[in-house]
């Protein structure tokens, strides 16, 4: 089911001392979620992603804007009439009911002609239990299950009524690291097998990037950027998105554009000229460089004071310092074969232009420039 959010806004009245000041949790959210996709709503705590999920579920009513499931305008429908499955962060499994009773619960709510016979209900419950691979646990109580198993039961309970849209609120945050990896693949598989449009909320960029077809990055109730994980990673529209995605995080420097050259500190690190390139106005900028954007180069234009080298196996991480850096340290991930080049107090890098982003100092919006290939001569 295609889900369309149209200018969705949710404001809460201020309380206590802030009476009169409305708090905007979600502002003017417009997004089209194609049928059968897995969407990750990503952002830091308090960015409005959970509110957005609740708006889609119907547990919260929007202040303005409309929500469509396909052709249906569901904005004024209560949750139970929207045909959604919702998996809560803490799973909200009924502790006094067995796994099977939990999964049957939504089916038993139905009345009249929608109500299935007891055997059909059990058959259906077994079907979803098989899908999420918990068929051996049907007679257990939720308290006797591990976190990962509880998660599966919660997904099964949400899926058993064949929802049009499946919503997951921080589905992995209550699991340990190993289980998290396993479960996110599991969510991906279940979503692919059922083909149900799925929206999940997370603050973990890695989680969102790894399984989503598309991600929506939010901050302060506003959508920062949408797109496939790779698109958003490769082309962040603003400094926030650039900093939020990627691990290790992007390195940010205070820079200066003068004469179509990018300076970090007093070093001209990248040429911005070239006939095809749009003009980059001179002035102060923020420069974001992905950790993989550094190439060790004995003659490179960019120098850093090496502090330590972390060997990760295939790659090595060079932790270094640069006076113009906004982050306390500069982290660069380079190929293991360059080990000899970086094991010295001062490391020189040249930069991959595709991994370098410029942002306006005031608006923090991306300033586009067409990279000049390094082989063009550049500065040398």
């Amino acid at each position, binding site marked *: 089911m295609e889900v369309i959010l149209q200018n969705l806004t949710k404001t809460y009245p201020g309380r206590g001392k802030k009476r009169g000041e409305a708090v905007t949790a979600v502002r003017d959210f417009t997004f089209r979620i194609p049928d059968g996709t897995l969407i990750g709503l990503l952002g830091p705590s308090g960015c409005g992603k959970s509110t957005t999920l609740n708006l889609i579920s*119907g*547990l919260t009513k929007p202040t303005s804007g409309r929500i469509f499931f396909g052709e249906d305008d569901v904005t004024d429908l209560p*949750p*139970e009439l929207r045909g959604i499955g*919702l998996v809560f962060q*803490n799973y909200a499994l*009924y502790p006094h009911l067995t796994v099977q009773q939990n999964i049957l619960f*939504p089916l038993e709510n139905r009345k009249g002609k929608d109500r299935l016979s007891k055997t059909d209900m059990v058959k259906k419950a077994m079907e979803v239990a098989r899908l999420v691979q918990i068929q051996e646990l049907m007679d257990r109580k939720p308290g006797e299950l591990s976190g990962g198993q509880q998660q599966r039961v919660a997904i099964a309970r949400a899926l058993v*009524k064949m929802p049009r849209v499946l919503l997951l609120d921080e589905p992995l945050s209550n699991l340990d690291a190993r289980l998290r990896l396993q479960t996110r693949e599991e969510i991906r598989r279940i979503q692919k097998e059922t083909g149900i449009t799925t929206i999940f909320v997370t603050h973990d960029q890695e989680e969102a990037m790894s399984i989503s077809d598309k991600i929506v990055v939010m901050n302060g109730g506003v959508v920062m950027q949408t797109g496939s994980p790779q698109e958003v990673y490769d082309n962040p529209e603003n400094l926030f998105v650039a900093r939020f995605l990627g691990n290790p995080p992007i390195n940010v420097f205070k820079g200066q554009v003068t004469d179509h050259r990018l300076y970090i500190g007093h070093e001209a690190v990248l040429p911005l000229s070239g006939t095809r390139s749009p003009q980059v106005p001179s002035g102060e900028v923020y420069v974001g460089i992905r950790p993989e954007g550094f190439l060790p180069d004995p003659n490179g234009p960019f120098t850093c004071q090496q502090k330590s080298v972390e060997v990760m196996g295939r790659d090595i991480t060079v932790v270094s310092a640069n006076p113009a850096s906004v982050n306390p340290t500069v982290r660069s991930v380079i190929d293991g074969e360059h080990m000899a080049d970086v094991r010295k107090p001062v490391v020189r890098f040249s930069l991959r232009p595709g991994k370098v982003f410029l942002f306006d100092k005031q608006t923090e919006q991306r300033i586009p420039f067409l990279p000049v290939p390094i082989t063009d001569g550049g500065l040398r």
Partner: protein
Amino acid sequence: MKQKPIYRNINHLKGWLYLLPALLFLGVFLVYPLIDVFIYSVEEGYNSASQTYFGIGTYNYSYVLHDPYFLQAVKNTFLLVIITVPLSTGIALLISVGLHSVKPLRELFQTVYFLPYVTNTLAVGLVFMILFKKTAYSDGFVNLIIRWFGGSSVDFIDGPYWAKMFVLCFYTIWVVMPFKILILTSALASVNQDYYQAAQVDGTPRLRIFLRITLPMISPMIFYLVITGFIGAFKAYSDAVALFGTNLNAAGMNTIVGYVYDMLYGDSGGYPSYAAAAAILLFAIVLTITTINLLASDKKAGL
């Protein structure tokens, strides 16, 4: 034979040392009196002035069990328990659910419902007198209402047995309600809202939410209230005194605890052996009922 390592014995001693204060207090104030009461109850013809008795046997029990006043007290107590415990718990549950679902004025209502709890029993008794008692000047407030609807007035304090029982039950329910409401509202508030949201998303009817989610979630608290309610109602005495005065046997409204008191200190008193026998009987009854309650709740929890 293996010799026990000596440090284990020392640890045992230490453990007992830590337990000593509690054991001492419980022993002196709980276990010893219980044993003493039991001893009294089997000493036949005990004379408290000379501290002598004729022999040991079950005569005291058979006397008490054949005493019409005691049988009346047992009947009154059982009626009180059977009527007030389920009713007060049920009504308290209804009120708590109501309080839980209304937003405006909730705190005011909570205060109002809590007032009987902090009010003195005898003061409440006085209020009930005004409500129910017939005097030379008025028939009481309730009779006023009854006549308003065309009924004939009833003497609730000195009248027929059912009327007196009604007042006693009404009074008991009214007095125990605040505590139950307090416990139940906090039990209701402690149920995670996510369960309700999950149920709402699944389109669960309200009654089903209450029966399948709310009730099981707060059932431990309900069991607690039922058990303490049973025990409390079995121990009822002051309520009856507040309503019907100290001569409860004459009013036919005595309770088991009242009977024990009368046997000890009442006008017809001075029989510690009979009192002890009655007390032991009450103990046996309460123990049995509580055990049944606990077994039932264990079975329910184990489902």
